[in-house]
Structures are given as C-alpha cells and as structure tokens.
C-alpha cells in the first residue's frame, strides 16, 4: 500500500506503477462521463466525428455532478461517483480506441475492462461512494460542459481538480482485482458457514 500524488495527463508508465491497494490523489483535469456519454463517444469515434475532449491519457470519472448556477456560472455542489458496472460494456473500448488511462468510479468493474487494463496499461480507482461534497471541494473549476442535450447528469463535464481523492486502486494493469479477492473470501466463508 503506497500513496501517490499524480498529475494528468497520466502516462502508461505511471499507470503501470500503480498496484491494487495503493492510495492516489489526482490533480489536473478529469472528465466526468456516465454510460450515455461513453456510448456517444464510441459512436462518434466509429463515425469519425470529433469528440470535444481529449480522452488519450485522461482520467475518466464515472459521475454526474449536482451543480448550481451562481451568477451565470455553474458551481459543483456534489460530485460523488456513480456505479461503474453500468459502463462495463463501453470501458474496454474507450481504453483501447481512445486511450483512457485512469478510470475512477465506485463498485468495481468487470473482466473485459480488467483485461483491457492489462493490455493497454490503465487502472481503475474507487472514490468513496457518496462522499460527494468531499469530491466537489476538490473541483477547482468547471472547464467545460459538453453534450448537454443528454441532460446535465449525463453530460460530459471537464473538471479541473486538485488532490482529488482518496482514490483506492482496485483494478491494476497486472491482472489484480481487489474486489474480486474480497468477494472470493466472502463466498468461501459463506460456504463454510452453510456447511458448518
């Protein structure tokens, strides 16, 4: 368990340094996008249409912020992670085709994402679910909000953050998945209890 401070863009080398159980704080730019923004990004890529933000070496945050307009400008009030598994069908492709380097969310992801992480050198980190005010305070600026036609929670938010965390690395590029280990132990224990 090592603690790191990382600045975006994140190189493959930096991503490969991270191991499950490591604690990370990220500074720089993160892109908040949920399932529908993922779906659209991949559709646009397929059609050769431009995507309004750079995904290569970026930190992608599974989040639909709660924001308030103050004096004509949006201010983020709460920005905790959303359940990452809803995005499982899209993430491997976002890593492979668009070069996403760090995925931040909650609840963990599945085998296809984990496989892409090993192959292309990316990591999945957990932000504590529900700790949304803590997350919002690390957001220093809303750089841009794109694809607003999806509805604000599902839009693409470009956020400038400082020491965004604590993030826990739960899937690394070495084929390890912290949550799978926890689940395996839980199921084993349950079987033992039932047989007792």
């Amino acid at each position, binding site marked *: *368990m090592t603690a790191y401070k990382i600045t975006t863009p994140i190189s493959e080398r930096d991503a490969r340094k991270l191991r499950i*159980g490591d*604690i990370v704080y990220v500074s720089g730019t993160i892109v908040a996008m949920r399932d*529908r923004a993922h779906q659209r990004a991949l559709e646009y890529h397929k059609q050769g249409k431009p995507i309004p933000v750079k995904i290569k070496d970026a930190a992608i945050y599974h*989040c*639909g*912020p*709660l924001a*308030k307009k103050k004096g004509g400008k949006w201010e983020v*009030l*709460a*920005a*905790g992670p*959303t*359940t990452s*598994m809803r995005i499982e069908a899209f993430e491997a492709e976002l890593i492979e085709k668009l070069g996403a380097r760090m995925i931040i969310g*909650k*609840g*963990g992801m599945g085998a296809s994402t984990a496989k892409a992480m090993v192959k292309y050198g990316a990591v999945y980190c*957990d932000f*504590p*679910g*529900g*700790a*949304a*005010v*803590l997350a*919002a*305070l690390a957001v220093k600026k809303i750089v841009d909000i794109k694809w607003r036609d999806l*509805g*604000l*929670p*599902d839009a693409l938010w470009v956020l400038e953050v400082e020491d965004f965390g*604590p993030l*826990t690395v*739960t899937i690394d590029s070495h084929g390890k998945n*912290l*949550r799978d*280990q*926890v*689940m395996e*132990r*839980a*199921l084993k*224990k*349950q079987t033992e*209890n*039932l047989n007792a």
Partner: protein
Amino acid sequence: MIKSNPIKIIHPVRCDNLDLIKTIENTAVELMRLAVTRLPQDVKEALQRAYRREDSKIGRIVLKAILDNIELAEKRKSPLCQDTGLIIFYAKAGSNFGLSNDISKALTNAVKRATVEIPLRSNIVDPISRKNTGDNTGIGIPHINWECVAGDFLELTVLPKGAGSENMSALAMFKPTEGLNAIKKFVVDTVIHAGGKPCPPTIVGVGIGGSADISLALSKKALLRPINQPHREKKIAKLEQELLKAINASGIGPMGLGGRNTSLGVNIEYEYCHLASLPVGVDIQCWCARRATARIHKDGLVEMLTKKGDA
C-alpha cells in the same frame, strides 16, 4: 449513546400562512432539504461506531471520507450525495384531515421547487426515451404511498432513494416448504453479491409475506424505521440481528473493499401471505440513508419529527 425517540420540536412553518396546502408544500420542501443535507441521528451514530470498530486499513479510509463528508454537507448545507434520488413520500393521512388530491399536487410542486431551491439533481427520465424531465417529476413521480389513519393530521415522510442501491433490489418467490433457511440465505446472498455497488455499509430492508409487490413494498417501508429500533416482535428482532451478523461476517466491508462493516442494520417487516406462497423482497439502502418526517396538523402547526441532527 443510543437515543430512542427523536426529540419533538414543535414550531410552525410560516405560521402566518393559513393556507394549509401551501404549508404542506413548504413542509415537503423543508423535509427534502433536511433529508438530503443531514443524515438521521441513528445512521450517523452507526457510521461513527463502524469507523471505531473497522480494522481494515482501506475500510477506515473509506469510513473516514464518509464521516468527513457528512460533516462538510452539514456545514455547507449541501446535499450529501450528488444522487439526490427518486423522491418517494409516505403519507399518513388522518381521517379528518381531508384534501388528498390537493396533497398530491402540493407534493409535486414541492419536488419541482426543491429541485431548484436546494437544489436536487434532475434524476427523472421517461423509461423508454430516457428523456430527462429536468424537474424530478414525471408520470407517477413523486411516488406517494398513502395510509389512512385516525386523526386530524397529515404525517409526511420523504425517502429520497438513490439508484446505486435501488438497482440491487431483489425478489424471491419461495416454495413454502423451503422456509426460514431459504429466506436467510437469500438475504445474505443478495447483500454479498451486491458487493460494493450499493455503497456499503448499507441498511438492508427485508419484506416477508404478502404478495410479490407487497413484499417489495414492505422491504422499502422497513427502511423508514431507525436502525436502533429493533422490530417490535422479539422473534423478528432476533432474526434481524442474526442476518446482520451473517452479512458482516462476509467481510465485504465499506464500499466492498473489505472489512467488518458491510451493513449497519437489517430491518424486517412482514405480513401474512397465501398458503401456497412465500414472497421475500430485499431493498438495500446506501450508507447515505436519507429520510425525514414531519406531522402537519389541520390548524397549520408543523411538528418536525426528524430531529435537525446535531453534529
């Protein structure tokens, strides 16, 4: 340590306003504000206790972030979580209170106002087109569960329910001969397989009996009871403790990253059922277990039954 009954603070909300419907609307907005910015005392205390008892390193980091977040949200009067949920009301309407159709309209207006004034995130979409209505209302939403009671008051509870936990809900229709062991295994299995997705440490609502829909409705209603209040019947209270122990023995832990605290409580509600059925519903609530209750009297007086929690 454990406070049994919430302190009753009797104070009129805009007592100069004699328009009862407006009072209901204003009270509903305040209930939503209270619910999404401050956790009920029983939940807060359970999370503090969980932090003290947690021995996993990552589990402690997660619980510390949760406790910090609760404090920050209170200080800044900001919603605890960006997912301010789907708004569900429980309305106990006194037989002499009246106004039921107008109450529905007042609650819908209250949700639209709360969306702007608190604010709440726009969470409600058409299920097919997925188009967001932008104001947290839509066909059937906010959902209102009505109960008729004797009296001249309206007791209103708001339960903003986040989707991360709601998506882990489960229903089982057991054969009656499968009995209690099947129920226990189903509840524990459901919580274990949900892993970190419902934002543990969770509260587990269990509904037993009735019919398919009734058992699920009971499992959600079970989430309204403070977790420091065991079920009124001893045998059920014992089952709640037994299930909680089995769930926490799994080691799923805070956010599913390992640890002793997978759930803070198990609340069971039950009703009788058909001799050929055994329905069991499970509704999981995230640690951010938001709820708030007030009683509105016919003369316009409002009692906030959920304490405006102190830090």
